[in-house]
Protein backbone atom coordinates (compact mmCIF):
# COMPACT_ATOMS: atom_id res chain seq x y z
CA UNK A 1 0.00 0.00 0.00
CA UNK A 2 1.50 3.34 -0.96
CA UNK A 3 2.22 5.52 2.04
CA UNK A 4 1.02 8.62 0.28
CA UNK A 5 -2.50 7.32 0.11
CA UNK A 6 -2.48 5.66 3.54
CA UNK A 7 -4.14 7.66 6.21
CA UNK A 8 -4.13 5.01 8.92
CA UNK A 9 -2.68 1.59 9.63
CA UNK A 10 -1.13 -0.46 12.36
CA UNK A 11 2.50 -0.56 13.41
CA UNK A 12 4.20 -2.74 15.99
CA UNK A 13 6.37 -1.75 18.93
CA UNK A 14 9.43 -2.72 16.90
CA UNK A 15 8.20 -0.52 14.07
CA UNK A 16 7.99 2.35 16.52
CA UNK A 17 11.66 1.91 17.41
CA UNK A 18 12.53 1.90 13.69
CA UNK A 19 10.37 4.98 13.14
CA UNK A 20 12.36 6.92 15.69
CA UNK A 21 15.80 5.36 15.15
CA UNK A 22 16.85 7.74 12.39
CA UNK A 23 16.07 10.97 14.21
CA UNK A 24 17.51 9.51 17.42
CA UNK A 25 20.85 8.68 15.84
CA UNK A 26 20.95 12.14 14.26
CA UNK A 27 20.41 13.73 17.66
CA UNK A 28 17.06 15.14 16.58
CA UNK A 29 14.69 13.14 18.74
CA UNK A 30 13.00 14.60 21.81
CA UNK A 31 11.08 12.00 23.75
CA UNK A 32 9.83 11.29 27.28
CA UNK A 33 12.34 9.88 29.74
CA UNK A 34 11.75 9.20 33.41
CA UNK A 35 14.57 11.14 35.04
CA UNK A 36 13.43 10.65 38.65
CA UNK A 37 10.71 8.49 40.28
CA UNK A 38 8.01 11.10 39.79
CA UNK A 39 9.55 13.19 37.02
CA UNK A 40 9.18 12.52 33.30
CA UNK A 41 10.67 15.06 30.90
CA UNK A 42 10.90 15.46 27.14
CA UNK A 43 14.65 15.33 26.54
CA UNK A 44 17.02 14.56 23.67
CA UNK A 45 17.16 10.79 23.23
CA UNK A 46 19.86 8.97 21.29
CA UNK A 47 18.60 5.46 21.87
CA UNK A 48 14.87 4.85 21.30
CA UNK A 49 14.94 2.10 23.94
CA UNK A 50 15.62 4.76 26.54
CA UNK A 51 12.19 6.26 25.91
CA UNK A 52 9.73 5.89 28.76
CA UNK A 53 6.38 4.61 27.58
CA UNK A 54 5.09 3.94 31.07
CA UNK A 55 3.89 7.43 31.90
CA UNK A 56 0.68 9.37 31.99
CA UNK A 57 2.23 12.63 30.95
CA UNK A 58 5.45 14.58 31.26
CA UNK A 59 6.07 16.83 34.22
CA UNK A 60 7.00 19.82 32.08
CA UNK A 61 4.76 20.19 29.02
CA UNK A 62 6.24 19.78 25.54
CA UNK A 63 5.24 23.38 24.77
CA UNK A 64 8.87 24.14 25.49
CA UNK A 65 9.85 22.81 22.10
CA UNK A 66 7.64 25.36 20.37
CA UNK A 67 7.87 28.08 23.00
CA UNK A 68 11.11 27.52 24.93
CA UNK A 69 11.59 28.54 28.52
CA UNK A 70 14.37 30.82 27.30
CA UNK A 71 14.80 31.67 23.62
CA UNK A 72 17.34 34.00 22.13
CA UNK A 73 15.40 36.20 19.73
CA UNK A 74 18.22 38.45 18.61
CA UNK A 75 21.82 39.40 19.30
CA UNK A 76 23.88 42.52 18.88
CA UNK A 77 27.42 43.74 18.82
CA UNK A 78 28.93 47.17 18.99
CA UNK A 79 27.36 50.07 20.79
CA UNK A 80 26.37 53.68 20.36
CA UNK A 81 26.57 54.62 16.68
CA UNK A 82 28.25 51.31 15.74
CA UNK A 83 25.50 49.05 17.05
CA UNK A 84 24.39 46.26 14.75
CA UNK A 85 21.89 43.43 15.18
CA UNK A 86 22.63 39.75 14.71
CA UNK A 87 20.18 37.01 13.79
CA UNK A 88 19.50 34.33 16.39
CA UNK A 89 21.05 30.90 15.88
CA UNK A 90 19.63 28.63 13.22
CA UNK A 91 17.27 25.94 14.36
CA UNK A 92 17.39 22.29 13.41
CA UNK A 93 14.47 20.07 12.51
CA UNK A 94 13.28 17.94 15.39
CA UNK A 95 11.05 14.99 16.00
CA UNK A 96 8.99 15.36 19.16
CA UNK A 97 7.59 12.01 20.19
CA UNK A 98 5.02 11.14 22.80
CA UNK A 99 2.82 14.22 22.91
CA UNK A 100 -0.55 13.49 24.52
CA UNK A 101 -3.86 14.80 23.14
CA UNK A 102 -4.21 17.43 25.88
CA UNK A 103 -0.84 18.89 24.92
CA UNK A 104 -1.68 18.58 21.22
CA UNK A 105 -4.87 20.56 21.74
CA UNK A 106 -2.78 23.13 23.60
CA UNK A 107 -1.01 23.85 20.32
CA UNK A 108 -4.31 24.85 18.75
CA UNK A 109 -5.13 26.89 21.84
CA UNK A 110 -1.87 28.80 21.52
CA UNK A 111 -1.99 29.29 17.76
CA UNK A 112 -4.09 32.49 17.81
CA UNK A 113 -1.79 33.96 20.45
CA UNK A 114 1.34 33.41 18.40
CA UNK A 115 -0.48 33.99 15.15
CA UNK A 116 -2.97 36.73 14.55
CA UNK A 117 -2.10 40.16 13.22
CA UNK A 118 1.57 39.83 14.23
CA UNK A 119 2.61 36.24 13.45
CA UNK A 120 5.39 35.13 15.75
CA UNK A 121 8.30 33.96 13.61
CA UNK A 122 9.94 31.96 16.37
CA UNK A 123 6.87 29.88 17.09
CA UNK A 124 6.20 29.51 13.38
CA UNK A 125 9.73 28.35 12.62
CA UNK A 126 9.68 25.83 15.41
CA UNK A 127 6.32 24.49 14.30
CA UNK A 128 7.58 24.13 10.76
CA UNK A 129 10.76 22.37 11.83
CA UNK A 130 9.19 20.03 14.38
CA UNK A 131 7.55 16.78 13.41
CA UNK A 132 5.17 15.89 16.20
CA UNK A 133 4.38 12.26 16.85
CA UNK A 134 1.34 12.20 19.09
CA UNK A 135 0.67 9.34 21.48
CA UNK A 136 -2.83 8.58 22.67
CA UNK A 137 -3.43 7.71 26.28
CA UNK A 138 -4.03 4.24 27.65
CA UNK A 139 -5.16 5.30 31.07
CA UNK A 140 -6.41 8.59 32.43
CA UNK A 141 -4.12 10.05 35.03
CA UNK A 142 -5.39 10.79 38.53
CA UNK A 143 -5.82 14.49 37.78
CA UNK A 144 -6.74 14.41 34.11
CA UNK A 145 -9.95 15.96 32.83
CA UNK A 146 -9.34 16.58 29.14
CA UNK A 147 -12.74 15.10 28.31
CA UNK A 148 -14.40 17.92 30.23
CA UNK A 149 -13.20 20.26 27.49
CA UNK A 150 -14.32 17.99 24.69
CA UNK A 151 -10.84 16.59 24.07
CA UNK A 152 -10.49 12.90 23.25
CA UNK A 153 -7.69 11.19 25.17
CA UNK A 154 -7.13 8.91 22.24
CA UNK A 155 -6.19 11.09 19.29
CA UNK A 156 -5.84 14.72 18.24
CA UNK A 157 -5.48 16.43 14.86
CA UNK A 158 -2.47 18.57 15.69
CA UNK A 159 0.06 15.73 15.50
CA UNK A 160 1.87 15.05 12.23
CA UNK A 161 1.67 11.36 13.02
CA UNK A 162 -0.88 10.23 15.57
CA UNK A 163 -0.30 6.95 17.38
CA UNK A 164 -3.11 5.33 19.29
CA UNK A 165 -2.02 2.35 21.41
CA UNK A 166 -4.21 -0.58 20.57
CA UNK A 167 -4.06 -2.18 23.96
CA UNK A 168 -2.10 -1.30 27.06
CA UNK A 169 0.79 -1.51 27.56
CA UNK A 170 1.04 -1.12 23.78
CA UNK A 171 2.56 -4.55 23.30
CA UNK A 172 -0.04 -5.03 20.68
CA UNK A 173 1.02 -2.13 18.57
CA UNK A 174 -0.33 1.24 17.53
CA UNK A 175 -2.88 2.58 15.18
CA UNK A 176 -1.03 5.22 13.20
CA UNK A 177 -2.65 8.09 11.36
CA UNK A 178 -0.72 10.22 8.92
CA UNK A 179 -2.06 13.72 9.47
CA UNK A 180 0.39 15.88 7.51
CA UNK A 181 3.10 15.86 4.87
CA UNK A 182 5.75 16.00 7.60
CA UNK A 183 4.25 12.92 9.20
CA UNK A 184 4.24 11.14 5.89
CA UNK A 185 7.87 12.11 5.32
CA UNK A 186 8.93 10.71 8.70
CA UNK A 187 7.14 7.45 7.98
CA UNK A 188 8.57 7.19 4.51
CA UNK A 189 12.16 7.81 5.57
CA UNK A 190 11.96 5.25 8.33
CA UNK A 191 10.90 2.54 5.93
CA UNK A 192 8.17 1.45 8.29
CA UNK A 193 5.17 0.10 6.41
CA UNK A 194 1.96 0.10 8.41
CA UNK A 195 -0.32 -2.90 8.11
CA UNK A 196 -3.95 -2.53 7.39
CA UNK A 197 -6.03 -2.00 10.47
CA UNK A 198 -8.42 -4.82 11.29
CA UNK A 199 -11.25 -2.61 12.42
CA UNK A 200 -12.14 0.71 10.85
CA UNK A 201 -9.80 3.21 12.57
CA UNK A 202 -12.51 5.74 13.34
CA UNK A 203 -14.56 3.05 15.05
CA UNK A 204 -11.55 1.89 17.01
CA UNK A 205 -10.83 5.41 18.23
CA UNK A 206 -14.41 6.04 19.20
CA UNK A 207 -14.53 2.84 21.18
CA UNK A 208 -11.30 3.62 22.96
CA UNK A 209 -12.48 7.13 23.75
CA UNK A 210 -15.65 5.79 25.34
CA UNK A 211 -13.71 3.17 27.33
CA UNK A 212 -11.25 5.70 28.64
CA UNK A 213 -13.80 8.38 29.36
CA UNK A 214 -15.57 5.98 31.71
CA UNK A 215 -12.37 5.59 33.71
CA UNK A 216 -11.72 9.25 34.48
CA UNK A 217 -11.54 9.82 38.18
CA UNK A 218 -13.55 13.02 38.18
CA UNK A 219 -16.33 14.25 35.93
CA UNK A 220 -16.08 17.98 35.50
CA UNK A 221 -18.71 20.01 33.69
CA UNK A 222 -17.38 23.48 32.91
CA UNK A 223 -20.45 24.63 31.03
CA UNK A 224 -21.11 28.25 31.88
CA UNK A 225 -17.98 28.83 33.95
CA UNK A 226 -16.80 31.51 31.53
CA UNK A 227 -19.48 33.81 32.89
CA UNK A 228 -17.60 33.95 36.17
CA UNK A 229 -15.38 36.66 34.69
CA UNK A 230 -18.30 38.98 34.45
CA UNK A 231 -20.34 37.89 37.43
CA UNK A 232 -17.78 37.01 40.08
CA UNK A 233 -14.94 39.43 39.38
CA UNK A 234 -15.28 41.27 42.68
CA UNK A 235 -16.33 38.26 44.75
CA UNK A 236 -14.41 37.51 47.95
CA UNK A 237 -13.82 33.97 46.66
CA UNK A 238 -10.50 35.02 45.10
CA UNK A 239 -9.21 36.59 48.27
CA UNK A 240 -10.08 33.47 50.23
CA UNK A 241 -8.45 31.16 47.67
CA UNK A 242 -5.34 33.31 47.47
CA UNK A 243 -4.71 33.03 51.20
CA UNK A 244 -2.87 29.80 50.62
CA UNK A 245 -1.36 30.61 47.22
CA UNK A 246 2.42 30.93 47.48
CA UNK A 247 2.69 33.08 44.37
CA UNK A 248 5.16 30.73 42.71
CA UNK A 249 5.17 29.90 39.02
CA UNK A 250 4.51 26.18 39.18
CA UNK A 251 1.01 26.21 37.69
CA UNK A 252 1.94 28.62 34.90
CA UNK A 253 5.17 26.91 33.94
CA UNK A 254 3.68 23.43 33.91
CA UNK A 255 0.60 24.55 32.01
CA UNK A 256 0.62 23.65 28.31
CA UNK A 257 -1.43 26.71 27.39
CA UNK A 258 0.25 29.38 29.50
CA UNK A 259 2.21 31.70 27.25
CA UNK A 260 3.13 34.78 29.24
CA UNK A 261 6.68 35.82 28.67
CA UNK A 262 9.26 38.38 29.63
CA UNK A 263 11.87 39.86 27.33
CA UNK A 264 15.25 40.20 28.96
CA UNK A 265 18.50 41.55 27.58
CA UNK A 266 21.84 40.13 28.65
CA UNK A 267 25.12 41.82 27.91
CA UNK A 268 28.55 40.20 27.84
CA UNK A 269 31.56 42.09 29.19
CA UNK A 270 32.62 43.03 25.65
CA UNK A 271 29.32 44.81 25.09
CA UNK A 272 27.79 42.28 22.75
CA UNK A 273 24.70 40.52 23.93
CA UNK A 274 21.39 38.92 23.30
CA UNK A 275 17.70 39.44 23.86
CA UNK A 276 15.84 36.48 25.34
CA UNK A 277 12.21 35.68 25.51
CA UNK A 278 11.60 33.77 28.77
CA UNK A 279 8.62 32.22 30.49
CA UNK A 280 7.09 34.58 33.00
CA UNK A 281 4.22 34.08 35.40
CA UNK A 282 1.25 36.34 36.02
CA UNK A 283 1.41 35.12 39.59
CA UNK A 284 4.75 36.77 40.21
CA UNK A 285 4.45 39.97 42.17
CA UNK A 286 6.36 42.09 39.70
CA UNK A 287 4.51 40.82 36.62
CA UNK A 288 2.44 43.97 36.20
CA UNK A 289 4.52 46.22 38.42
CA UNK A 290 5.19 49.50 36.63
CA UNK A 291 8.35 51.56 36.89
CA UNK A 292 6.33 54.20 38.72
CA UNK A 293 5.66 51.68 41.48
CA UNK A 294 1.98 51.26 40.63
CA UNK A 295 0.75 47.68 40.35
CA UNK A 296 -2.72 46.99 38.89
CA UNK A 297 -2.63 43.56 40.56
CA UNK A 298 -1.12 44.37 43.90
CA UNK A 299 -1.90 41.20 45.85
CA UNK A 300 -2.04 37.46 45.27
CA UNK A 301 -5.83 37.66 45.14
CA UNK A 302 -5.86 39.78 41.95
CA UNK A 303 -3.09 37.74 40.37
CA UNK A 304 -4.68 34.38 41.10
CA UNK A 305 -8.02 35.65 39.87
CA UNK A 306 -6.37 36.82 36.67
CA UNK A 307 -4.78 33.44 35.98
CA UNK A 308 -7.89 31.41 36.67
CA UNK A 309 -10.17 33.72 34.71
CA UNK A 310 -7.72 33.72 31.83
CA UNK A 311 -7.88 29.92 31.70
CA UNK A 312 -11.61 29.64 32.27
CA UNK A 313 -12.93 32.71 30.51
CA UNK A 314 -10.70 35.30 28.85
CA UNK A 315 -9.05 32.97 26.36
CA UNK A 316 -12.42 31.76 25.19
CA UNK A 317 -13.72 35.32 24.92
CA UNK A 318 -10.77 36.44 22.82
CA UNK A 319 -10.17 33.40 20.64
CA UNK A 320 -13.20 31.16 20.90
CA UNK A 321 -11.04 28.40 22.38
CA UNK A 322 -11.03 26.96 25.87
CA UNK A 323 -7.94 28.04 27.75
CA UNK A 324 -7.56 24.83 29.76
CA UNK A 325 -7.00 21.38 28.26
CA UNK A 326 -7.45 19.38 31.46
CA UNK A 327 -3.93 17.95 31.57
CA UNK A 328 -4.00 18.10 35.38
CA UNK A 329 -0.38 19.13 35.86
CA UNK A 330 -1.25 22.17 37.96
CA UNK A 331 -3.44 20.01 40.18
CA UNK A 332 -0.66 17.49 40.72
CA UNK A 333 2.06 20.01 41.37
CA UNK A 334 0.43 22.86 43.29
CA UNK A 335 2.05 22.76 46.73
CA UNK A 336 -1.10 24.11 48.39
CA UNK A 337 -3.80 22.22 46.49
CA UNK A 338 -5.34 24.96 44.43
CA UNK A 339 -7.25 22.71 42.08
CA UNK A 340 -8.63 24.24 38.89
CA UNK A 341 -11.21 21.50 38.51
CA UNK A 342 -12.50 22.33 41.97
CA UNK A 343 -12.44 26.02 41.12
CA UNK A 344 -14.71 25.32 38.15
CA UNK A 345 -17.23 23.64 40.44
CA UNK A 346 -16.89 26.42 43.05
CA UNK A 347 -17.48 29.18 40.52
CA UNK A 348 -20.48 27.48 39.02
CA UNK A 349 -21.85 26.97 42.52
CA UNK A 350 -21.42 30.66 43.30
CA UNK A 351 -23.26 31.66 40.17
CA UNK A 352 -26.40 29.63 40.83
Amino acid sequence: MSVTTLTAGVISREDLVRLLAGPASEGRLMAPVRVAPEVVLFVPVRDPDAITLDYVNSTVPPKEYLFPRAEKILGWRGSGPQLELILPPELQPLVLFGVRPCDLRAITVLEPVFGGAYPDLYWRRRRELTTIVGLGCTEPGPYCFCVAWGISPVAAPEADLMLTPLEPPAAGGYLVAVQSAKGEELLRRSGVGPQAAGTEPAVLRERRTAELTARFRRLIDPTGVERAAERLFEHSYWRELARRCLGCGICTFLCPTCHCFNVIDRTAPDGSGGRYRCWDSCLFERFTLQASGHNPRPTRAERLRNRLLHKLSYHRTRYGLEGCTGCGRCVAACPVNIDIAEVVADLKGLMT
Partner: protein
Amino acid sequence: MRDNPLWPHLATIVKIVDETPDVKTFRVVLDDPGARENFRHRPGQVALLSVFGQGEATISISSSPTRRDYLEFSVRRVGRLTGVLHQFEEGYKIGLRGPYGNGFPLEELRGRDLLFVGGGIGLAPLRSLINYMLDRRDDFGSVEIVYGARSVADLCFKEELFTVWPKAPGVRVYTTIDRPEYGWDGHVGFVPSYLAELAPSGAGKYALICGPPIMIRLVLQELAGLGFPPERIVTTLELKMKCGIGKCGRCNIGSTMVCTEGPVFNLARLQALPPEY
Protein backbone atom coordinates in the same frame (compact mmCIF):
# COMPACT_ATOMS: atom_id res chain seq x y z
CA MET B 1 13.75 39.56 9.64
CA ARG B 2 11.42 41.88 7.83
CA ASP B 3 8.27 40.07 8.91
CA ASN B 4 9.37 39.42 12.47
CA PRO B 5 7.19 41.55 14.75
CA LEU B 6 9.68 41.15 17.61
CA TRP B 7 12.61 42.36 15.52
CA PRO B 8 13.40 46.00 16.21
CA HIS B 9 14.30 48.38 13.41
CA LEU B 10 17.45 50.32 14.08
CA ALA B 11 17.03 54.09 14.37
CA THR B 12 19.55 56.82 14.97
CA ILE B 13 19.10 59.59 17.48
CA VAL B 14 19.46 62.85 15.58
CA LYS B 15 18.52 65.34 18.28
CA ILE B 16 18.03 65.32 22.04
CA VAL B 17 16.09 68.07 23.83
CA ASP B 18 16.20 68.43 27.60
CA GLU B 19 12.57 69.18 28.38
CA THR B 20 12.90 69.01 32.16
CA PRO B 21 15.45 67.73 34.66
CA ASP B 22 14.17 64.20 34.10
CA VAL B 23 12.49 64.27 30.69
CA LYS B 24 14.23 64.25 27.35
CA THR B 25 12.74 64.24 23.90
CA PHE B 26 14.62 62.00 21.51
CA ARG B 27 14.20 62.75 17.83
CA VAL B 28 15.06 59.60 15.89
CA VAL B 29 15.22 58.61 12.24
CA LEU B 30 14.81 55.00 11.19
CA ASP B 31 17.93 53.74 9.43
CA ASP B 32 16.21 51.66 6.78
CA PRO B 33 14.44 53.76 4.09
CA GLY B 34 11.79 51.07 3.66
CA ALA B 35 11.06 51.10 7.39
CA ARG B 36 10.89 54.91 7.34
CA GLU B 37 8.41 54.84 4.53
CA ASN B 38 6.24 52.19 6.17
CA PHE B 39 6.12 53.72 9.61
CA ARG B 40 2.89 55.63 9.61
CA HIS B 41 1.42 56.23 12.99
CA ARG B 42 -1.70 57.81 14.42
CA PRO B 43 -1.51 60.23 17.32
CA GLY B 44 -1.83 58.27 20.56
CA GLN B 45 -0.01 55.22 19.30
CA VAL B 46 3.08 53.88 21.00
CA ALA B 47 6.31 52.21 20.03
CA LEU B 48 8.62 49.84 21.86
CA LEU B 49 12.05 51.41 22.10
CA SER B 50 15.02 49.06 22.47
CA VAL B 51 17.97 50.07 24.54
CA PHE B 52 20.09 47.03 23.75
CA GLY B 53 21.42 45.54 26.93
CA GLN B 54 18.59 46.94 29.01
CA GLY B 55 15.50 45.84 27.15
CA GLU B 56 12.49 47.55 25.65
CA ALA B 57 10.19 50.24 26.97
CA THR B 58 6.78 51.28 25.69
CA ILE B 59 6.81 54.98 24.91
CA SER B 60 4.12 57.16 23.33
CA ILE B 61 5.08 58.72 20.05
CA SER B 62 5.04 62.42 20.86
CA SER B 63 5.50 63.72 17.32
CA SER B 64 2.67 64.16 14.86
CA PRO B 65 2.44 61.81 11.86
CA THR B 66 2.11 64.86 9.66
CA ARG B 67 5.80 65.54 10.23
CA ARG B 68 7.31 62.61 8.45
CA ASP B 69 11.02 63.30 8.60
CA TYR B 70 11.45 61.99 12.09
CA LEU B 71 9.81 60.43 15.10
CA GLU B 72 9.93 61.90 18.56
CA PHE B 73 9.72 60.15 21.91
CA SER B 74 9.57 62.04 25.17
CA VAL B 75 10.99 59.83 27.88
CA ARG B 76 11.06 60.35 31.62
CA ARG B 77 13.97 58.83 33.47
CA VAL B 78 12.34 56.43 35.97
CA GLY B 79 14.39 53.27 35.97
CA ARG B 80 17.31 51.37 34.61
CA LEU B 81 16.45 51.40 30.93
CA THR B 82 15.41 55.04 30.80
CA GLY B 83 18.47 55.88 32.89
CA VAL B 84 20.77 54.40 30.28
CA LEU B 85 18.79 55.99 27.44
CA HIS B 86 19.22 59.38 29.06
CA GLN B 87 22.97 58.95 28.78
CA PHE B 88 22.83 58.38 25.04
CA GLU B 89 24.14 60.98 22.61
CA GLU B 90 23.14 62.09 19.16
CA GLY B 91 24.30 59.51 16.68
CA TYR B 92 23.60 56.58 19.01
CA LYS B 93 21.36 53.82 17.77
CA ILE B 94 18.27 52.46 19.44
CA GLY B 95 15.73 49.91 18.26
CA LEU B 96 12.14 50.66 17.39
CA ARG B 97 9.07 48.47 17.02
CA GLY B 98 5.69 49.80 16.17
CA PRO B 99 3.47 51.67 15.85
CA TYR B 100 1.18 49.81 18.19
CA GLY B 101 -2.13 50.52 19.82
CA ASN B 102 -5.33 52.15 18.67
CA GLY B 103 -4.42 55.84 18.84
CA PHE B 104 -6.91 58.64 19.37
CA PRO B 105 -10.30 58.33 17.62
CA LEU B 106 -9.60 60.86 14.88
CA GLU B 107 -12.82 60.29 12.99
CA GLU B 108 -14.88 61.06 16.07
CA LEU B 109 -12.84 64.17 16.85
CA ARG B 110 -13.14 65.72 13.42
CA GLY B 111 -15.01 69.01 13.46
CA ARG B 112 -15.22 68.99 17.25
CA ASP B 113 -14.04 71.47 19.84
CA LEU B 114 -11.30 69.90 21.89
CA LEU B 115 -10.22 70.28 25.50
CA PHE B 116 -6.79 68.82 26.30
CA VAL B 117 -5.95 68.24 29.96
CA GLY B 118 -2.41 67.14 30.71
CA GLY B 119 -0.14 66.72 33.69
CA GLY B 120 3.62 66.36 33.64
CA ILE B 121 4.90 63.88 31.08
CA GLY B 122 1.26 63.11 30.23
CA LEU B 123 1.38 65.89 27.70
CA ALA B 124 3.57 63.72 25.45
CA PRO B 125 0.88 61.62 23.71
CA LEU B 126 -1.43 64.64 23.65
CA ARG B 127 1.26 66.68 21.90
CA SER B 128 1.16 64.28 18.98
CA LEU B 129 -2.54 64.99 18.55
CA ILE B 130 -2.22 68.72 19.19
CA ASN B 131 0.40 69.15 16.49
CA TYR B 132 -1.54 66.89 14.13
CA MET B 133 -4.57 69.04 14.68
CA LEU B 134 -2.58 72.23 14.09
CA ASP B 135 -1.26 70.80 10.82
CA ARG B 136 -4.86 70.03 9.84
CA ARG B 137 -6.36 73.03 11.53
CA ASP B 138 -9.54 73.27 9.50
CA ASP B 139 -10.54 69.72 10.42
CA PHE B 140 -11.05 70.63 14.04
CA GLY B 141 -12.91 73.20 16.11
CA SER B 142 -11.64 75.34 18.96
CA VAL B 143 -8.82 74.05 21.13
CA GLU B 144 -8.20 74.59 24.81
CA ILE B 145 -5.13 73.15 26.48
CA VAL B 146 -4.97 72.97 30.27
CA TYR B 147 -1.59 71.74 31.40
CA GLY B 148 0.35 71.70 34.62
CA ALA B 149 3.47 70.34 36.24
CA ARG B 150 5.15 70.47 39.62
CA SER B 151 7.30 73.47 38.75
CA VAL B 152 8.33 75.63 35.82
CA ALA B 153 11.35 73.41 35.23
CA ASP B 154 9.05 70.38 35.02
CA LEU B 155 6.87 71.82 32.27
CA CYS B 156 7.40 69.79 29.08
CA PHE B 157 7.54 71.21 25.57
CA LYS B 158 8.08 74.75 26.81
CA GLU B 159 8.62 76.22 23.37
CA GLU B 160 5.32 74.91 22.05
CA LEU B 161 3.56 75.69 25.31
CA PHE B 162 4.63 79.33 25.48
CA THR B 163 5.30 80.29 21.89
CA VAL B 164 3.92 77.99 19.19
CA TRP B 165 0.55 76.86 20.46
CA PRO B 166 -0.76 80.16 21.89
CA LYS B 167 -0.06 81.74 18.49
CA ALA B 168 -2.09 79.15 16.60
CA PRO B 169 -5.58 80.23 15.51
CA GLY B 170 -8.41 79.23 17.81
CA VAL B 171 -6.07 77.79 20.42
CA ARG B 172 -5.94 78.85 24.04
CA VAL B 173 -3.31 77.52 26.42
CA TYR B 174 -3.70 77.55 30.19
CA THR B 175 -0.59 76.56 32.11
CA THR B 176 -0.25 76.08 35.84
CA ILE B 177 2.39 74.97 38.31
CA ASP B 178 1.86 73.42 41.74
CA ARG B 179 3.55 76.01 43.94
CA PRO B 180 4.52 79.68 43.57
CA GLU B 181 7.92 80.34 42.06
CA TYR B 182 10.00 83.41 41.66
CA GLY B 183 9.69 84.68 38.11
CA TRP B 184 6.39 82.89 37.35
CA ASP B 185 3.42 85.19 36.93
CA GLY B 186 1.12 82.51 35.62
CA HIS B 187 -1.46 80.39 37.40
CA VAL B 188 -0.52 78.45 40.52
CA GLY B 189 -2.54 75.41 41.54
CA PHE B 190 -3.14 71.76 40.64
CA VAL B 191 -4.58 70.93 37.26
CA PRO B 192 -7.96 69.65 38.50
CA SER B 193 -8.61 72.82 40.49
CA TYR B 194 -7.45 75.02 37.60
CA LEU B 195 -9.89 73.17 35.41
CA ALA B 196 -12.66 73.84 37.91
CA GLU B 197 -11.82 77.53 37.85
CA LEU B 198 -11.82 77.69 34.06
CA ALA B 199 -15.02 75.64 33.92
CA PRO B 200 -15.05 74.99 30.17
CA SER B 201 -18.43 73.86 28.97
CA GLY B 202 -18.70 70.27 27.87
CA ALA B 203 -21.34 70.97 25.24
CA GLY B 204 -20.35 69.15 22.07
CA LYS B 205 -16.74 69.07 23.20
CA TYR B 206 -14.29 66.20 23.58
CA ALA B 207 -11.94 66.07 26.54
CA LEU B 208 -8.60 64.29 26.13
CA ILE B 209 -6.72 63.63 29.34
CA CYS B 210 -3.33 62.24 30.15
CA GLY B 211 -1.34 62.49 33.33
CA PRO B 212 -0.65 60.81 36.67
CA PRO B 213 -3.47 58.51 37.87
CA ILE B 214 -4.44 60.81 40.73
CA MET B 215 -4.78 63.75 38.39
CA ILE B 216 -6.88 61.77 35.97
CA ARG B 217 -9.20 60.66 38.73
CA LEU B 218 -9.82 64.20 39.96
CA VAL B 219 -10.12 65.59 36.42
CA LEU B 220 -12.73 62.96 35.56
CA GLN B 221 -14.83 64.13 38.47
CA GLU B 222 -14.55 67.75 37.31
CA LEU B 223 -15.44 66.90 33.74
CA ALA B 224 -18.55 65.02 34.81
CA GLY B 225 -19.70 68.19 36.54
CA LEU B 226 -18.97 70.29 33.46
CA GLY B 227 -21.27 68.28 31.24
CA PHE B 228 -18.85 65.98 29.45
CA PRO B 229 -20.54 62.60 28.85
CA PRO B 230 -18.40 59.44 29.24
CA GLU B 231 -18.30 58.89 25.47
CA ARG B 232 -16.58 62.24 24.97
CA ILE B 233 -13.94 61.84 27.68
CA VAL B 234 -10.87 60.15 26.27
CA THR B 235 -7.76 59.04 28.10
CA THR B 236 -4.75 56.87 27.44
CA LEU B 237 -3.78 54.15 29.89
CA GLU B 238 -0.28 53.31 30.92
CA LEU B 239 0.41 49.64 31.60
CA LYS B 240 3.53 47.54 31.68
CA MET B 241 4.05 46.05 28.23
CA LYS B 242 6.67 43.65 27.02
CA CYS B 243 5.65 42.86 23.47
CA GLY B 244 3.09 45.41 22.32
CA ILE B 245 1.45 42.81 20.08
CA GLY B 246 -0.87 40.91 22.37
CA LYS B 247 1.31 37.89 23.09
CA CYS B 248 3.17 38.33 26.36
CA GLY B 249 -0.06 38.26 28.31
CA ARG B 250 0.59 41.02 30.78
CA CYS B 251 -1.32 44.13 29.71
CA ASN B 252 -4.78 42.65 29.93
CA ILE B 253 -7.64 44.19 31.85
CA GLY B 254 -10.03 41.29 32.04
CA SER B 255 -10.10 39.90 28.52
CA THR B 256 -9.09 43.20 26.88
CA MET B 257 -5.48 43.52 25.78
CA VAL B 258 -4.50 47.12 26.19
CA CYS B 259 -1.65 47.02 23.68
CA THR B 260 -3.90 46.03 20.79
CA GLU B 261 -7.28 47.36 21.91
CA GLY B 262 -5.95 50.45 23.67
CA PRO B 263 -4.17 52.30 25.14
CA VAL B 264 -6.69 54.96 24.24
CA PHE B 265 -10.08 54.43 25.88
CA ASN B 266 -13.06 56.65 26.37
CA LEU B 267 -14.57 56.71 29.82
CA ALA B 268 -17.62 54.70 28.79
CA ARG B 269 -15.42 51.85 27.63
CA LEU B 270 -13.18 52.16 30.67
CA GLN B 271 -16.12 51.92 33.04
CA ALA B 272 -17.15 48.65 31.37
CA LEU B 273 -13.78 47.09 32.11
CA PRO B 274 -13.10 45.22 35.35
CA PRO B 275 -11.34 47.43 37.91
CA GLU B 276 -7.84 46.15 37.27
CA TYR B 277 -5.59 48.94 36.09
